[in-house]
């Protein structure tokens, strides 16, 4: 290593509510270098980016910038140190103009005696937009821009740093290409290359070929750790993929041996199901005991589809049949009344009332099961909760513990208990293993197999393709709001990830 690192992370660790998001991560970025960062969802990439951007503070470890210790308390401080970030979730305020967004918090440069000179600010914003070749008026309201245009404005905002400081910059790009067209990606990469004399880049993306194309070196992360580091020229997509997943597709992991042929009877059917602006003409059948996986990227319409099936987003066309009857679900209580349960990805918001104990959370969807002559029977309710806690092996000192104090895996089991107690026939698993550690994931897979064996029908949108393929009986692939492919995923006939990806992008 001839050159000295400009940005240096040593043994950085960070945990959230018991889940180790980062474990002793060491990364260095040299001046003018583009560093690629790859890993599965939950591998810790976004946490790492947020630490560099001053959003989170690490539990332990050190950050050095240009040889000096770096302690960041806020994104603003990171900015002042010459660290800019283009976030995966867009951070622009839609009710402000493009110019106001680019210089948000920096208006001082353009003000005299507390009054902002708007012409000067707009002219400066115009210069930033020219850097990314975005021909829009800086006075446009951000809400009027397309998604891709906003992404370019984000980049322009990060690039504005170069005029603010003489120092060498570090620009973090967190999944900047996922919504861009090829032409826009070319512009982005061109800008990245042109700026290398002023800035170092950290580039996070799921698109491994892009990472290899633009980066000098690549770090591979898995389960919060850096598992490999190599020059981009010395590796290839399959190798990166193998390192990210950490093993070949592992049949045992997903309990494939326990996968049984589902019953013939249909519990749910969609015919030409359409929700304006989200998805169209979706057909599928769900049989008793079947796990139906839906694959697709963000914007494919699969998220909206699952929300339709639980009454959050009523469909606008086509036909949905549940248990033989045509239905249109306009609120979750209607879905619940039909025996549908929902395990949300936002477990801590939509899954559980965190500030309440386990007992009322388990009976929240089925209070009638513990009522007699119009009154809740406290002792019966408690016994019921205790039996679920025992059956699902929820690790807690007592059923009176607040859900707040449970680990992610145990919280997920309480959510499942809630729907099992409500005798749901169909469960919608929306990213059920998000944020769970490996052991907890396996327990969830185990439970899903058991439920399926007992005749529960499951609709699954998973975090990874591996999960979708491993767990499902059949798979629906969606792209741009339409179903692009269907796969049989019986044991032995499971499709490969590349087969699915071809229909996803």
């Amino acid at each position: 290593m001839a050159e000295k690192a400009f940005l240096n992370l040593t043994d950085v660790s960070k945990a959230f509510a018991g889940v180790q998001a980062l474990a002793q991560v060491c990364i260095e970025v040299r001046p003018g270098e583009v560093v690629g960062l790859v890993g599965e969802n939950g591998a810790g990439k976004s946490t790492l980016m947020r630490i560099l951007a001053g959003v989170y503070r690490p539990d332990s470890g050190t950050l050095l910038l240009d040889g000096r210790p770096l302690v960041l308390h806020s994104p603003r401080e990171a900015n002042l140190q010459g660290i800019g970030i283009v976030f995966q979730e867009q951070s622009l305020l839609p009710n402000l103009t493009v110019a106001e967004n680019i210089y948000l918090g920096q208006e001082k440069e353009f003000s005299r005696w507390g009054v902002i000179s708007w012409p000067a600010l707009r002219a400066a914003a115009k210069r930033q937009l020219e850097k990314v070749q975005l021909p829009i008026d800086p006075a446009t309201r951000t809400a009027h821009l397309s998604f891709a245009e906003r992404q370019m404005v984000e980049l322009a905002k990060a690039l504005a740093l170069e005029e603010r400081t003489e120092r060498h910059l570090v620009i973090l790009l967190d999944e900047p290409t996922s919504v861009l067209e090829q032409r826009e990606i070319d512009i982005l990469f061109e800008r990245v290359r042109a700026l290398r004399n002023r800035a170092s880049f950290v580039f996070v993306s799921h698109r491994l070929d892009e990472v290899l194309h633009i980066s000098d070196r690549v770090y591979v992360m898995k389960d919060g750790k850096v598992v490999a580091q190599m020059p981009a020229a010395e590796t290839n997509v399959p190798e990166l993929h193998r390192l990210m997943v950490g093993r070949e597709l592992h049949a045992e992991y997903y309990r494939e041996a326990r996968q049984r042929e589902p019953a013939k009877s249909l519990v749910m059917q969609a015919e030409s199901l359409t929700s304006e602006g989200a998805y169209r003409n979706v057909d599928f059948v769900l049989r008793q005991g079947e796990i139906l996986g839906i694959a697709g990227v963000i914007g494919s319409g699969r998220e909206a589809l699952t929300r339709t099936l639980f009454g959050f987003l009523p469909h606008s066309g086509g036909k949905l049949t549940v248990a033989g009857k045509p239905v249109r679900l306009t609120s979750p209580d209607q879905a619940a009344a039909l025996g549908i349960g929902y395990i949300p990805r936002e477990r801590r918001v939509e899954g559980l009332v965190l500030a309440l104990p386990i007992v009322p959370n388990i009976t929240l969807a089925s209070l009638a099961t513990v009522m007699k002559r119009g009154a809740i029977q406290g002792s019966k309710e408690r016994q019921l909760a205790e039996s679920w806690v025992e059956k699902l092996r929820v690790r807690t000192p007592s059923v009176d513990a607040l859900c707040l104090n449970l680990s992610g895996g145990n919280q997920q089991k309480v959510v499942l208990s809630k729907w099992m107690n409500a005798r749901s026939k169909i469960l919608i698993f929306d990213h059920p293993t998000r944020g769970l550690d490996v052991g907890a994931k396996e327990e969830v897979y185990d439970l899903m197999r058991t439920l399926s064996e007992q005749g529960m029908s499951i609709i699954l949108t998973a975090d990874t393709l591996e999960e979708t393929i491993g767990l499902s009986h059949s798979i629906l692939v969606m792209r741009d709001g339409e179903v692009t492919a269907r796969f049989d995923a019986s044991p032995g006939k499971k499709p490969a990830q590349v087969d699915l990806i071809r229909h996803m992008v």
Partner: protein
Amino acid sequence: MTLKRNYREQIRGLAPLLVLVGLVLVIGVLRPGFLSWDSLVVTVANTAILFILAAGSTFVVMLGSIDLSIQAICSFASVIVAAMLPGYGYVAFPVAVAMGLVTGTVSGLFHVWLRIPSFIVTLATSGLLVSAALLFSHERAISIDEAGRARLAWVTGDFLGLPNVIWVAALVTALGIWSQKYTPFGRYSIAIGAGEPATWASGVRVNRYKVIAFAISGALAALAGVLMAGREGSGSPTLADQLLLPAIAAVIVGGTAITGGAGGIGRTAVGALIITIVRVGMTFIGVDIFAQQIVFGVVLVLAVALTIDRTKIVIVK
């Protein structure tokens, strides 16, 4: 860490009761007559109306909302009773309470249908009722004549040596505690206040229970107005004008979180007693009666500041 947290929460839960006992003892030392049976009974009876007013809005606050129309409902109910009792007899009472029930229901429906913040909706209904009461009473206090007063005996009378208002308050307390512990309404109120998205996503008809809470709040505010008319022997469009602040203070001082999700009517009973005793204490040390609202304002802000759990709210608007 968990144990320590629970310990702190228990202390926090008991704090209102300890404050109440402390205040009673302090005043008892300063003015020994205060601790006599008769004096305590009078204090409790004086608390009853404030408590009933506050009790109704307790469920609303538990949901994380607020009802600012209770004092207007209370005053209007007193006007209805005073105006109708001589001519129509006992039907005046159910009419007054029904007015509160309907007002609360309407506020609740607007709140959930139009998704307007509860403080705005109830501020609007409050204005509406204030005007209605002024027009209805021709801007005057209506005193109730002898014939009418005879029909108020159930308010002014005693039973087993205690004033009837205390029995009414006790009944409200018992029903409130029962419904919180044993009915789906009580359970869902807490759940909605503590985590509305999860409660909704569990198939609970959140809007229905919100409307019920506002309806109860309106009905109990009207009941408080009925009792006030009985005790005062008159109804007036400004009768309850000074009661909104002490009533909300009673709910919060008792330990129901202003952000929702924790608390109960039993706590509001303690809170209302604290407010009354603070008022007695102020009179005792010679605070001008018109300056007392200053003290209630300060008490309210302090109580919220001490009880609010800032870890659960990111942004305060």
